[in-house]
Each structure stands twice: as structure tokens, then as C-alpha cells.
């Protein structure tokens, strides 16, 4: 039995809707991971111990366990505690927090690498420490860390396939749906791969634009 890609067009709308869900979940999780990453970094570096310690424990938990398990825990596990999240929301939270932890590691390093003259200059103008962090140090740290965060975001896009297992009908799950109907796994997985790649290229283009836009301010 050879390959037959003529079965694909009939399911293209299913696949394309899957692509849209993949983009939606990736964008939402990316935003959460970005701002969550900044927040976690600031807490890890500057918050009092009663905030810092729980956050460190949380980070350790998210870095030390499989993302798949985290998704199961958030989607299926939390129901037992009376928290019944829609699959999409659970997916965004799981992916977003997971990558927020990774982003936070990057941002922490970048914050510490900002020249200490920057903090001094802001303080001599009369800014408080938190004002100096907010207006001077953190924007520079974030700017410096855009390229590696971009890499994390591409990893996030690829890992978004995992949310298919909790029933978000994104690209991977839509492909499986089509396969279930046609028994043509190679064709549909190959098509899915092509779409992932295209979305990936789009994301890289966006990251490059952001990098270019911030290049003047170095």
C-alpha cells in the first residue's frame, strides 16, 4: 500500500482549525510564560523568604517533572480539588507555567548581568529600588534575553502538541482525528509536520522583528 495524499484535502479544514488552536494556545501560553517569567525572576531575586521559598519549590517542581505529567495533574488532578478547568485553559496554564520557570532562569541571570552602574544612576536620581528595577534594570534584562526566550518559545510551540492528550483539538489531535477516519497516519502526520514547520517559521520571523526593533537600544 503506497502513499496517497489525495485523502488530505477532504480533511484540510479540520487540520487548519487545528493549526489555529495550536497558534492560539502557543500565543496565550507564550504571553503567560513571558510575564510569569519576569514575575518569578523578581520574586526569586528580591522577595522575602516566605515568597521566595514557595516559588523556588514550585520552580523545582516544574523543572524536575515531565510536562505531560504536569498537564495531567492540572487538567485531571485538580478536578478532585473542585477546580474543573476547560482543557484549553488547563493547557495554557500548564505550558505557560512550565516555560515561565525556564524564562525566569534566563531573566534572573540577565538581571544580575545588568551593569550595576545602571542601578546606581537610577538611585542617585532619587528612584527607589523598585522603581529602578521596574524602569531601568528589568527592561534591559528582558531586552538582553529576547533571543534565548525566543528559543524557549519555539520549544513551547513544539511542546504544545502535548495538550492533545487532554483533549484540546489542536494540530496533533486534529491530525489523529483525520487518521482515525482514513487510516492514513503517514500522510496526516507529514501534513501536520509541515504545518508545525510553517508556524515555526512565522514565530522566528516575529522574534527577528522584535530583536531588530530593540537593537538600537543596546
Amino acid at each position, binding site marked *: 500500500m503506497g502513499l496517497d495524499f489525495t485523502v488530505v484535502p477532504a480533511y484540510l479544514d479540520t487540520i487548519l482549525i487545528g493549526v489555529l488552536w495550536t497558534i492560539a494556545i502557543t500565543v496565550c501560553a507564550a504571553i503567560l510564560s513571558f510575564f510569569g517569567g519576569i514575575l518569578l525572576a523578581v520574586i526569586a531575586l528580591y522577595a522575602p523568604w516566605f515568597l521566595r521559598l514557595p516559588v523556588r519549590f514550585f520552580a523545582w517542581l516544574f523543572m524536575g517533572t515531565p510536562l505531560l505529567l504536569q498537564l495531567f495533574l492540572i487538567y485531571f488532578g485538580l478536578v478532585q480539588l473542585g477546580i474543573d478547568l476547560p482543557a484549553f485553559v488547563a493547557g495554557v496554564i500548564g505550558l505557560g507555567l512550565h516555560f515561565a520557570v525556564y524564562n525566569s532562569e534566563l531573566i534572573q541571570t540577565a538581571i544580575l548581568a545588568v551593569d550595576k552602574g545602571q542601578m546606581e*544612576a537610577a538611585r*542617585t536620581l532619587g528612584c527607589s529600588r523598585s522603581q529602578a528595577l521596574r524602569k531601568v534594570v528589568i527592561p*534591559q534584562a528582558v531586552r538582553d534575553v529576547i533571543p534565548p526566550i525566543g528559543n524557549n518559545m519555539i520549544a513551547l510551540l513544539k511542546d504544545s502538541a502535548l495538550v492533545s492528550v487532554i483533549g484540546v483539538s489542536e494540530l496533533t489531535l486534529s491530525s489523529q482525528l483525520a487518521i482515525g477516519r482514513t487510516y492514513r497516519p503517514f500522510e496526516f502526520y507529514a501534513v501536520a509536520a509541515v504545518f508545525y514547520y510553517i508556524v515555526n517559521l512565522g514565530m522566528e520571523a516575529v522574534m527577528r522583528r522584535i530583536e531588530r526593533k530593540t537593537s538600537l537600544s543596546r
Partner: protein
Amino acid sequence: MTEAHKFVDIRHAQKAYGDLEVLKDISLTVDRGEIVAIIGPSGSGKSTLLRAINDLDSLTGGEVWLDGVQINKNLPYRQYEKHINAMRQQVGMVFQHFNLFPHLSVRDNVTMAPKLLKGLSDKEADKLAEEQLNHVGMLERIDYYPSQLSGGQKQRVAIARALAMQPKLMLFDEATSALDPELVEEVNLVMKRLAEEHMTMIIVTHEMDFAASVCDRVIFMDKGVVVEQGPPSVVFQNPTEERTKEFLRKHLAQHHAQNAAEAAALTAAQTNEGAK
């Protein structure tokens, strides 16, 4: 505060890192409108003293007063932060390495603190930025980023940024030491202009010519103490202390050597040019 007070009053300033005493019981005063240069070999404590004035480096003993208010008051942390932030708004500081904010335009470098701390509107802040940048001759570069400026231009913007907070006192920490020789003059001119406007300035510098031409008083520090102070004509031409004489001699020799080396390099370059 009815009793007469000195504008800047440093009383028994001491600073030690463990056993290492950087400042050994320094007392000095500066009048309003006075321009004071602090000179001395590196490691003499002059920068530390300057940075102690706005508590960037905290003293381990002694007091610093500005216009009748103690800067390094002993207060609980939160109260102290509030107090020191208010004090620092009155003290401008210019650093050797400029420390401009690279992620902000020249305009935003100048307006950031006035907007944040004095609640200026965008319009008021823009007007202020234009005034201050015009004052240092950097108005045309208002929408540039620091990375697009030369060192001299950066330092002029840094001065404008400090002045935008309308400080009572300006501190200069080797403001021209990191500049290429040909860029020093433009910064010196700005500082001279400030001097003519009677801004109170304390200037840590290695430039004796500048100190001699601009300052009312020169303070020579060595090993954490003030060795000698007086008008530039006295300290530079007729120093009484042996250490001052030695420092000036060495400095002058170095200066000459440097000039000679530069002249030699120039001649060599010209010869090469001619040979081509």
C-alpha cells in the same frame, strides 16, 4: 534650623572595609555656590568620599549634612529609603562611565526621573528635556539612543539628566577620565558653564588644569585623609605638604610623558603618511 549651617558639611567621615580604612576621619565643608576639586592618587579615597555624600557608599562612621539636613540619618529601613530618595533628588551625580540608560532615548533618559518622581506631564517633561539638552548642546540628538552617541556626548546627556532634577549640589566622579582626549574639552566646557551659573559642585578629577581654571578650592587627599587644601594657586604652585609636592611632581611627569608619547605617535604617523 535657625543656627547658621554649612551647605555641605562632612563630619568625621570614616569608611572601613574590615581592617582596611579607606576614609580616616575626614571633616570638610563646602559653601553654597562653591566649586571644589578633590585630587589625589588612585586609592586615596576620593571617589569613596564623593559617593558617601549621597550615600551610594555608606560611611561606617561620621555624618554628612546637606543644607541643614543630615543625609546619612540613622532610621529604620523603610523610613530611611524614603528619606534618602528625597535627599538624592537634591544631589546630582555624574559618573566616569556615564551610566546612561541604553534602552531609553536621550529624551527619555532626561525625563524618566522627573516624570516618575515629580509627576511631570509628558508635555512638561518634554519641555524640560529640551531646555536641559539645549543647555549642554545636545538638543539635536534628543531622539537618538545612547549607543549612537560619542563618549563626550553621552557625558553631556548624563549631566543634563542630573540637572533635570534641579539639584542643589552636583557631584562629578572623574567625569572625563573615560573619554578620549579630544572629547574631554566639550564636557569641560559644560562644567565650566555650570560653574559660571554658581552651581555648587564637588569634582573628583585627575585634570589639574581644569581644576586650576574652574575650582575655588582644591582638596588633596591621600591614604584616606585630607592632606592639604586651599585655592588652586596655592595648592598647585606652593604646596606646603611634602606628599602634595610629590604627587604633583609625579602627575606632571606622567602628563609630560603622555604628551610626549602622543606627539611622537603623531610625528610617526605623519612620517608614515609622507613616506607613502
